[in-house]
């Protein structure tokens, strides 16, 4: 049994792949949509919270980078704040001009389904997604990481 478990484990690691599930999610405005309705051809997905300073830095940096790609990259920000902090999330989103753009979608992960599926803690955890396939996955944010995002996005668009 142990041998099979080890083979199973090795195979699952070797053949592991990751996509964005077509899960039903709730947006900040309380509307329910399918996650695939939000992801464009190319998307940037990030788990964040209002108290997470690196997450906010990443968002700010990303907003400048994204402009280089016109509206070709959609940004899905999956919020992990407690449900009691919804008003705080709304106020925060309202204070950031760029978050009101059409390419930004704030998803509320109230029951932590997405966080658990992607082992999102600790945050930020970010993905670059091409046709719902995760092509790049990164945890944490250090200033300068935007150069990696740019490299990855350029690689997709230059294919």
């Amino acid at each position, binding site marked *: 049994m142990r041998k099979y478990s080890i083979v199973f484990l090795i195979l699952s690691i070797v053949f*592991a792949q990751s996509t964005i599930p077509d899960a039903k999610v709730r947006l900040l405005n309380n509307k329910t949509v399918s996650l695939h309705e939000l992801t464009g051809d190319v998307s940037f997905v990030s788990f964040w919270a209002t108290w997470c300073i690196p997450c906010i830095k990443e968002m700010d940096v990303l907003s400048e980078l994204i402009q280089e790609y016109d509206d070709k990259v959609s940004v899905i920000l999956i919020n992990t704040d407690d449900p*009691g902090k919804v008003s705080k999330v709304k*106020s925060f989103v309202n204070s950031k*001009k760029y978050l009101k753009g059409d390419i930004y979608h704030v998803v509320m992960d109230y*029951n932590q389904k997405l966080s*658990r599926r992607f082992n999102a803690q600790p945050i930020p955890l970010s993905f670059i997604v091409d046709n719902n396939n995760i092509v790049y*996955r990164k945890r944490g944010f250090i*200033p300068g990481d935007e150069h990696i995002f740019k490299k990855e996005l350029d690689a997709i668009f230059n294919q």
Partner: protein
Amino acid sequence: MRYSINKYIFFVFFYTSLIAQIEYSNHLNIRYGDGDNNYTYEEIYFNTGITLNRSDYRLEAVFNLELGDPPEIGLKQKGLADFLFGYYNRNLSVELGKFYQTWGRGLILNQVDYQHLDFDTGAVGLNIEYEKDYIALSIIAGGIEPRRSTTFLGDYDPRVPNYILKQTLYGSDFSIELPGSTMGLSILFTEEDEAPISSVMSGMRFEKPYDNGDFFLSFISKKSKLDKVNSDSETDKGNGIYLSNTNYIKDWALTSNYRRYRIDVKDPSMRDNILSNYGQALDVQRSPTGYYQHSFKLLSRNSKQVNLNDEIGLELELIGPIDENRTLLVNYTKSSSTKGWHNEFGYWEPEPLTTTNGNSNSLFPSSDKDSYPFDELFIELSGYNEAHTLSYRVGFDYFSDTFAVLANSNTSESFEVNKAITFPFMVNVTLNDLWNIEVQLELQRAKKGFELTVNDETSFVSLLSDEYQKNIFLGFTVNHAPWSLTLATESTNSDESLSSSDSNTWNSVALTYRIKSDNILEVFYGSIRGGLDCTNGVCRYIQPFENGLRIDYSVNLN
């Protein structure tokens, strides 16, 4: 031998033929710590997820394996910690195993897992959700086993829980989207496994967005019953209300929150006793707390311990951009218990509703010392320079908390208080494409002790050797991706938990290396000051870590 090899080949063939449809995710986290004060831990977490994606449904299985011997905080664990099997389609989701569910904003049900506090209210059982067009239905049934470390029991250890409460819960939530608003109704039943205690909670909520803002209202009632063998059953009734309103004025937002929780109002002798109050708020209830969750070091340690059983509170928050590069945040919180308490004849009794200064805390929080008053004002300015090569956060925080009412009669008063003023500051400078530095400085002056009044003479007895506690935290980080190095020092002139021989300075160095995008190694050496650690109103005393090594390795194996 040949048979065995054939078996493997068949297994691999069978298995890989499914690869096109099956997706795997694996995550490994290894943690190790060894401090001078016998603070050692070894933890391994392995999470594996298997998903079968079909065009019209999805099957998922998640397994969490855990080895903690001992863990940093919590009980020893070896083997399968939990699992979850799920079926999901466009309208229906069925989960079997360990699930987490939230209804509305959590006044009745908000299951959380705060690993760093060893606080997990996930239930093992069945979780069904159905959603179509304008309606949503949730049904749950399962068992929970939240655990805590409490001084009300023997063998108190801040790292190892000595109180485990097993409960069975089942209930349902229904919500409907009406034109321009949303309504929800919930009911939840609970039964304790080891005591004849049961409860029923019901609630409603209403949410209405409008052009420049939105409004939210939630009301719950709770009835608890203690069955007795030789006498009538006892019942305890409580209720809670939460209101939230946000108004937008261009890019600015003004939010006001109001809460009044009277789930289980108890006098000061019983208020904090989590063992004997059968009517108290359940651990699966994580109602909105209305407190600012700080990210600065000293401020997060000075958090307010929320009392969801008996609290009335207001929170006002203003946030908006001053200009293109600067954002201002002002947050004010005020709360108190719903009753003031007086002890004239050797027992506690509630003060009359109208208190001495004319205020009533039946509807609004009181400032009277006999009502556990709390006030906090936090102001923060954050922003960037024109070139966006420099970012900063500078703040001011005033904190005042009366957290124990020890005596209050016509001749003597005694209240335990904690007051602090804090100036946090952080600046981050990007030198070029490779180098980035960050400096964090926090200065705090605190006053902790007893405010006493005997025969109209007032005095203050400090818990500290000095009248004021002066805390300083300084952190310096150099980032050069994929490396990050942080030097930190924290010091105090006086602390109630330190003996004269203890050091009052905590120094540390931490090196983080991102081996790959989601493959991170962190090595820490030094000391960490202990104290209160709070997340969304859940607080736990964390013991200090002295002169030791910590290693944290986290990798996503996809």
